[in-house]
Every structure is written in C-alpha cells, then in structure tokens.
C-alpha cells in the first residue's frame, strides 16, 4: 500500500514544490518507487522535473474532471529512475470549478490513487484551501506543512490545522496524539535572530510535531529550479541537498514506525 503524503500550506511561497520535488527525488534515489501528484495549476512540480507543458497530453485536470480517469493514464516518467509525475497544467484551475458539480467531489483523488503500485505518493497542493486541497487531505495519510519563518505563516498554519481537523473529522486529542502531520521549517535564515526567536517560541507547543530537520535558505535550491533538476543532481554538496537528505531520513523513520518496520540507516550513497 502506498504511503500517501500531502505537502500542504495554503500560503504561497513556503517551499511546497521544492519539498515535493527534492523529497520525491531522494526517495526514488534510495530505491523507492515514487509518484509525485502535481495538484497545483501552476504546474511547478512538473516543470521542476524537466517536463515542459507542451509535452503533456493528459494531466491531473482529466483525472479530476473525467469520471474513472486513471492516474496511470496521465503519469509520466521523469529523468530520475523510479520517479513518476502526474503532471498539472493551468487547465487544472478551471477543472477545480467543474469538480464542484460532481458527486463525492472530495473523494475523487482518493479513488484515483487507490491500488497504485508505488511505495510513496507525494501530493503537491495548490496554495489555497479549495476543493483540490480538500481532495488531497481526504486522500492522504500524512501531511507535511512547509512553514516559513514569518508571522503570516503562523496565522496560515492555524487556519490549516483547523481545516485538517474538519476534513479528517478528527477530535483535538487525535490530532495531537496521532502521527498525522509534521511542520517543516523552510528558508531559515540564521541572521534574522529576533524573528526566528519569536516564531520558534510560538511554535514551541508543536515541537513534537515539527521535523528536526530545518531547510536553511540556500541559493542552490533556487538555481536547481531554474535548471529543472532535483538538488541532488544540481549541487549534491550544497546545504540544501544535505537538508533534504536529512528530511528524507526523518520521513522514512515516520513511515517505518507507522508500518512497524525495523529502523534502517539512510543510504547516502544512493543519492547522487
């Protein structure tokens, strides 16, 4: 059974796509069959892995709007062995409107992802709390919330947690006792001392719900986007590559715990 994870934050520019691409690449390089579902009409996960919009015949737009359309029909190979992407184009924005008329509209994605032959499925969500995000929340078993060190990110996090609570139909106790979500601090800049102190203090109650790994601000991560490559292929020695490798280890730790699998050290050699 695939471990379905939504990478989600309704605030834009928090590092959702960068996290989806690099975590997905690291998982694939470590030998896990991985599918990235691009649910953002901007299609940055798709573009980020070197697939140009002109090369896409069918996308997540069809999966969300055409009844019984299968993910297998739209999924494309990427340049990384073992890593596939279900691409998105700008048409997905219109599709979101059409979805509102369908029955069980929140469960469309969950149905489409059922029975796929992947170890991991990562969903890159759009920066909104609309029907596409609700679909990914309904389909996933785990949520990664990339969060920038800013006041507005904290407010966004509060709204998001309330939404998770209502969509997943969880009580307060379940939400904090179960391993349902993890906050991922991104674009961390050590020089912003006062802001960092304030935000980290506010996030203190969520210490157990926050990844130990912090993604530091790193220019190589921006450049890798331009090069349309995962950071491990663009600059494997960069701090960004190291941070995402650590994140992958932590993520796998959670997955192993969930599935009662023995702990295993991360395989650094398998990432380029």
């Amino acid at each position, binding site marked *: 059974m695939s471990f379905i994870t939504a990478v989600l934050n309704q605030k834009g520019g928090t590092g959702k796509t960068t996290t989806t691409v690099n975590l997905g690449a690291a998982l694939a390089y470590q030998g896990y069959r991985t599918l990235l579902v691009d649910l953002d009409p901007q299609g940055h996960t798709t573009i980020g892995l070197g697939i140009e919009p002109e090369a896409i015949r069918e996308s997540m737009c069809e999966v969300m709007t055409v009844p019984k359309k299968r993910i297998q029909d739209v999924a494309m190979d990427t340049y990384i062995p073992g890593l596939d992407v279900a691409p998105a184009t700008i048409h997905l924005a219109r599709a979101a409107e059409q979805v509102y008329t369908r029955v069980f509209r929140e469960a469309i994605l969950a149905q489409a992802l059922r029975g796929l032959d992947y170890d991991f499925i990562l969903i890159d969500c759009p920066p909104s709390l609309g029907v596409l995000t609700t679909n990914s929340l309904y389909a996933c078993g785990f949520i990664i919330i990339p969060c920038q060190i800013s*006041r507005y990110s*904290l*407010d966004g*996090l*509060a*709204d998001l*947690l*309330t939404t998770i*609570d209502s969509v997943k139909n969880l009580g*307060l*106790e379940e*939400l*904090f006792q179960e391993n349902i979500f993890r906050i991922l601090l991104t674009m961390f800049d050590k020089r912003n001392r*006062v802001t960092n*102190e*304030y935000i980290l203090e*506010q*996030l*203190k*109650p*969520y*210490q*157990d*719900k926050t990844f130990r790994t912090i993604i530091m601000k790193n220019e190589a991560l921006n450049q890798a986007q331009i090069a349309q490559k995962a950071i491990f292929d663009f600059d494997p020695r960069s701090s960004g590559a190291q941070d995402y490798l650590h994140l992958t280890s932590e993520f796998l730790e959670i997955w192993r715990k969930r599935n009662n699998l023995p702990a295993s050290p991360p395989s650094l050699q398998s990432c380029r």
Partner: protein
Amino acid sequence: MAKKKQLAGKSTKLAKLPLTQALARRAEEQLRERALPADTSISPPHEGRAHGPLAAAYLYLLQELTALHRQLTPGSNPPSPHHSLPYHLLGAPEIKRALTLARQGLHELQHLLSQA
C-alpha cells in the same frame, strides 16, 4: 523602543488555537514529570504539586522546623509541611527568598533554644 520589546505580548492566531493550548499543557505536564525525584521516600507525591530534589529539600526543611516547633511549643498544632509544598517549580529568586526566610527562622529558633 527596542525592536524585540515591540514584539512582546503580540499573540498569533496559532497561539489561540485549542490544539496549541492542549499541546502546551501537555508539554508542561511532561516537564513536571521529568522533574520527579528518583527517591520519593522523603516527599510522598502530591497530585498537581511541584516535585523534584528542590521540593524534597524544601519539604525536609519544613519537616525539621515543624518538629522543632512542636518540641518548643507543646500542645500547638502547626500545619502539615506537605501543605506548604509549592504548586509550581520554584524559580531561582523564590529559592533565594525561601532560604533567607529559613535562615531567619533558624536564628529565631536558636534564640528560643538558648532561652529554654
């Protein structure tokens, strides 16, 4: 005004979330549990009260003072030292104050004992 001071007391939507408050409460409880002394023979645990080596020492001091008080003023009924155990873990200034008070108490006792 210093930039940091202007941030003080500014709350966020996240801080007001019931989940945040529940998690903060749990963290506080865990902190108290971690502070439990290994040897609780001196201080039987009291629910909801602060524990730890400092609390045990404080309680021991109170027990000794109460015993001395009983010896010096037979017939009086001083409150149980367990009731004087603080509800919260003591901070450094509070400990300093408590030790000053204890020293004053011991001086008074010494004075009383010299008269006896």
